[in-house]
């Protein structure tokens, strides 16, 4: 455990607005081991995507502030790199798969060109060699006629195929970490699970660490070993998937789980919901941000922020956790 594939230490992101600072990621720390998948779950607007973009250093430079003690990939800190050094890492050591397969690829270049350009940028090589590497990566994600896909433009492929091509692009340099940000949200259930299967298979092969960002707990349960629950920019719970689903400790995690409708042969029990809605980042409640929506709230919750132990395997930020 001395060297994590990805180790994020004390990461914060905020927007500078006319009305002051809007904290969107609030001092979070976590790590992922090689070959493991960790899910980052929470409702939209709670800072998941900001976390991912901050790790890669892709946030705009004006109006946005980022600070981190360190962001390590295989023990190497990338948070202090300059622009050119960072570019050498992006795509080679850490790759990202985005949400919208329709727009994430350049419409005027072929799939093959875009994938091989990633490899060429980091390793170079002859045209023939690049072409072969690119075909291999397309075949690895399950395309049987890779050449045909390689010469196609993005608009000629369906959404699922484009996302697979994106996975081929993410894996072509065999990175240490892949961040998948709501990568299957825009797709159908059926396509979604096929794509997850492919991703899992590649992960097993290459021992890649995956940070799977999603609002879909059912999906995270299927494909992740560990899970981080995020709410209003803070981590509320970290645990392994099995224990989260059997006995979640944070009331928010438990609430989220009860929101998911289940498919079962017998008529399922009525769904239960968390009351209220996610507060806006300009108007965060003091103390525990979840307190106003929490059924187990006590006076202390509105005054002070519960501690979150960033070192432990299992941690929960709550004054009254569930057993």
């Amino acid at each position: 455990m001395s060297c994590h594939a990805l180790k994020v230490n004390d990461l914060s992101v905020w927007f500078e607005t006319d009305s002051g600072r809007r904290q969107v990621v609030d001092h979070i720390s976590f790590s992922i081991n090689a070959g493991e998948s960790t899910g980052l779950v929470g409702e939209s607007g709670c800072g998941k995507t900001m976390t991912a973009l901050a790790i890669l250093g892709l946030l705009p430079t004006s109006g946005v502030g980022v600070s981190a003690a360190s962001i390590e990939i295989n023990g190497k800190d990338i948070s202090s790199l300059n622009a050119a050094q960072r570019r050498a890492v992006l795509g080679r050591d850490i790759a990202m798969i985005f949400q919208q397969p329709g727009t994430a690829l350049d419409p005027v270049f072929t799939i093959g060109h875009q994938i091989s350009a990633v490899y060429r940028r980091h390793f170079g090589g002859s045209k023939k060699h690049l072409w072969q590497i690119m075909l291999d990566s397309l075949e690895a994600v399950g395309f049987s006629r890779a050449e045909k896909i390689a010469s196609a433009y993005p608009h000629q492929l369906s959404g699922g195929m484009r996302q697979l091509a994106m996975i081929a692009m993410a894996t072509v340099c065999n990175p240490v970490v892949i961040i998948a940000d709501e990568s299957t949200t825009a797709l159908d259930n059926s396509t979604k699970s096929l794509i997850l299967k492919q991703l899992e298979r590649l992960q097993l092969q290459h021992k890649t660490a995956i940070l799977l960002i999603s609002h879909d707990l059912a999906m995270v349960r299927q494909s992740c070993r560990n899970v981080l629950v995020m709410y209003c920019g803070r981590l509320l719970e970290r645990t392994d998937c099995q224990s989260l689903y059997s006995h979640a400790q944070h009331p928010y995690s438990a609430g989220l789980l009860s929101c998911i409708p289940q498919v079962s042969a017998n008529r399922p029990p009525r769904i239960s919901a968390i009351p209220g809605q996610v507060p806006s980042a300009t108007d965060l409640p003091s103390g525990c941000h979840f307190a106003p929506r929490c059924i187990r709230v006590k006076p202390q919750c509105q005054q002070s922020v519960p501690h979150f132990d960033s070192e432990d395997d299992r941690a929960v930020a709550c004054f009254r956790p569930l057993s």
Partner: protein
Amino acid sequence: MSTPTPPTKPPLLEVRNLSLSFHQQEQVAIDRVSFSITAGSTLGLVGASGAGKSSIARAIMRLIKPDSGEILFKGKNIFMMNSQQMMATRQRMQLVFQEPFTSLSPRRTIEQSLLEPLQHFAIGDTNSRQEKTRQIIQTVGLDHDVLRRYPHQLSSGQQQRIAIARALITSPDLLIADEAVASLDVSIQAQIIQLIQSLQEELGITLLFISHDLAVIRQIANDVAVMYQGQLLEQSPADTFFSKPNHPYSKTLLSFTNNKAPTSLPVENWRLDRGRTTAETTSNCVFARSCQVKMPICDQLEPASHQIQYRNQHPLGPHYVKCHLYEEVNTNDT
């Protein structure tokens, strides 16, 4: 457990042999679809995107014109109605959309949006209309002060509640919800599902609930209809469907939901999220290309929709499957 609906009760909505192609895109949207909904029940229409679910909703609302087929509302064909009858019918059926924000006119207050249907159908006077908007706002679980606001000042959950309120304000008999919870966050989605469930109980409203998500359908629907590339492949009571789906596509859908997807299939053969073009032949089964239990006949002959007969089990309603596998069973049985 819902009581079995007596077969003599006339359906509120009946769709017969409905077909529709988008000629510009050469897409088959709806291909000879027939189904019916009895008053007070909920039909869950499930299928991948591009399967033609939304087109059916829009055809029922007469927003698009189908090529052929009939839609009967309370026994009357809506395409044969004169404008007066159509006006009365439109008041009796309403639609809720997927995107809450774009469902509401951005430069009109919530109150203006809610009053519009009442004014258009000339229901009540000014006072009673305002009273009605207050009532309906409460019904969907919001405070009166949202009435003065504009859509962009509300959260997506609140917007969707308003969209539902606008649909309910004319007290319709039929509510069509087209992916009404698909774009919402899990906790908001759960709240809206709860709201729909309580509306079903309190108002006894008939619901056509369209979704790609079987888990959501399971929560809300009494009956399930499965669409694939414009065709209806299976229709059965929900309890039967989820315990024992019959059509291979239904089984695939359920296995995807439980993440038991096959990985051996070359990805080019996934045609699950694509529609069918008008050029493609219909002389075979539409699912044949992706079917795991395909027989030679599936490539040659389009199966007919057959009603499954039950001997021992108590039927909750009719059960139709459009698959050659069940044709044989059926012919053997009769």
